[in-house]
């Protein structure tokens, strides 16, 4: 049981800082934000360049334009969400200590 074991090795400040930075750098919301910004811009451009041709297929809706704008908005919302509420430091640091606890628990199980 991990929770019963005391964790001997506490993570150093340096380790914590690095983990926090890397966790936040690759937050899924940033990846999603970037992906949808790119998709949105591409789709909007296609909609602007080929607007007339699209209309025959869609029956009059400039779907690339609308979908492109919607995806840009979605992408921006993801980026704003990421900016406004980054993953809390406690959560990230908790993972570090939990990892140690898991290793300790595993060692304990192994020696049993």
């Amino acid at each position, binding site marked *: *049981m*991990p929770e019963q074991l005391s964790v001997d090795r506490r993570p150093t400040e340096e380790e914590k800082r690095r983990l926090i930075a*890397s966790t936040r750098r*690759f937050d*899924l919301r940033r*990846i*999603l934000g970037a*992906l*949808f910004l*790119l*998709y949105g811009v*591409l*789709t909007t451009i*296609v*909609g602007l*360049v*080929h607007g007339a*041709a*699209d209309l*025959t*297929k*869609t*029956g*009059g*809706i400039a*779907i*690339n334009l*609308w*979908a*492109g704008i*919607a*995806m840009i908005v*979605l992408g921006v919302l993801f980026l704003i969400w990421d900016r406004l509420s980054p*993953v*809390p430091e*406690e*959560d990230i640091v*908790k*993972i570090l200590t*939990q*990892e140690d606890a*898991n*290793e300790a628990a*595993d060692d304990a*199980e*192994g020696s*049993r």
Partner: protein
Amino acid sequence: MLTGTVVEATGNGIRLDLSWVDYLMIIVYFAVVIGIGFIARTRVKSSMDFFLSGRSLPAWITGLAFISANLGATEILGMAANGAQIGMSTLHYYLIGAVPAMVFLGLVMMPFYYASRVRSVPEFMLRRFGKAPHIVNALAFAVSNVLIAGINLFAMAIVIEAMLGWPQWLAIVVSAAFVLAYITLGGLSSAIYNEVMQFFVIVAGLVPLTIVGLNRVHGWSGLTAALERTQSGKLLHAWAGTSIGDVTNPIGADWLAIVLGLGFVLSFGYWTTNFTEVQRAFSAKNMSAARRTPLIGALPKLFIPIITVIPGLIGAAVIGKALSGAGHSGLTYNSVIPKLMQMYLPSGVLGVAVTGLLASFMAGMAANVSSFNTVFTYDIWQRYIKRDRSDAHYLRVGRWVTVAGVLVGILTAFIAAGAQNIMTYLQTLFSFFNAPLFGVFIIGLLWKRMTTTAALWSYIAGILAPAAVFTAYQISVANKAPIFATATAETLYGAMISVGTVAIVAVVLSLVTKAKSDRELQGLVYGVGKIDLKGDAVVGDTAWYRSPALLGSVALVLCVVLYLPFL
């Protein structure tokens, strides 16, 4: 060449005319997926990181992954096909056949799962009952999952061949290689991140399809008018024709069978015990997030029919005859989404939709593979083959098991290509695994008297009973005197018979065998010991909108409300 040709759109088949922009979107997506695999790899330090993302993920991610693991492309294409074929009755699969079970998982079962710190569903079987039922459960899950991965791989290859013109073997090998790469690198984290991305991309692809489709049939009123005209409007109701003794609905079952068979037995069996989904909740960062995982997943589930069933209805209205295979159209109901994409989506949004479909095919397979490697490594290898090795050993085994699982999947896919009937029967067989497992778990959770022997034999009897019903049904169909109206009705009754069998066998055997002591059952049975629901809570978990009871109630209310327009 940037625009799809209109001539092609009216032709037969579902070949899509992709421009370089569409291909660019596909390439970018899969580059990101592999990139995530490499990033995730730097964070995989222990087997827990690999198999359960180190139990570190926030609830919105695990919740969306929970629903995406189920939202594979076979599911999307299949549900749209149902929409075209049986219309609004398809809503049962999204509403009564999903939401109550997901709420039950979050509110009632997750506390037992998460608090016992088990790493897989079979491991809960081990903790509650012991080795014998655990071995059966773990083997059944591992074997069925790796084979299902292969069957899905084959289903994907057929669609990719039809849409993009790739030969089947190429589609199989390329997609398996992608799944292999990102799961071996980053484990469950890679799988989950990809599932969440895939969720948003497939929605971004299907929403424009639904909007354009509705526009082309002159809106909702135009659609209903067209369906009244061509199909006498029977596709527009979910509950009509389900009264007992007077069954005229396309599922061929009365309301009691739908509520008990689909809404209770099948759906609770699938959503509360299928480790492929439940694993996503196990990877949540704490008890609160784990409980919210299926509840957050239930909210999008409620609305997904808008972008699957409605396109199916549009297909029924516009090309209903062709979809039923009339006039050598080369189409089946399963081709309704790709066909509508070909007809209605111009380059640009078409790229998004194709990316979404490809991603959800792979996410579906990755979900199977990532739960298979966990069960194989923890429940079979660590428990019965090589005990007491270092964590690094199990992490290594997990990676190799992933490779082996994908290879077996590829092999299965090629066998499926040659022997589709066998595969259909296998899939039916696997569908018998969940309902009895739920029966065993729910009795075991509520009744501390239930014993190991009872669990083992009631579980096995619960698998054999529906298999017997299925065989009887097949024979009766061959004799042209079917004992159930449709194959779907057969599964509903089969599942109910399965759980009934479990209950009888479990009670009888429990009464004549020795029960476990209360001490061994702490936190594993309702009322024995106490489960701490708030011990690991973090700041913010107490916000009113994060209350599991509230989320669950909202989901249940919506589940009823969404039926109202289509009674």
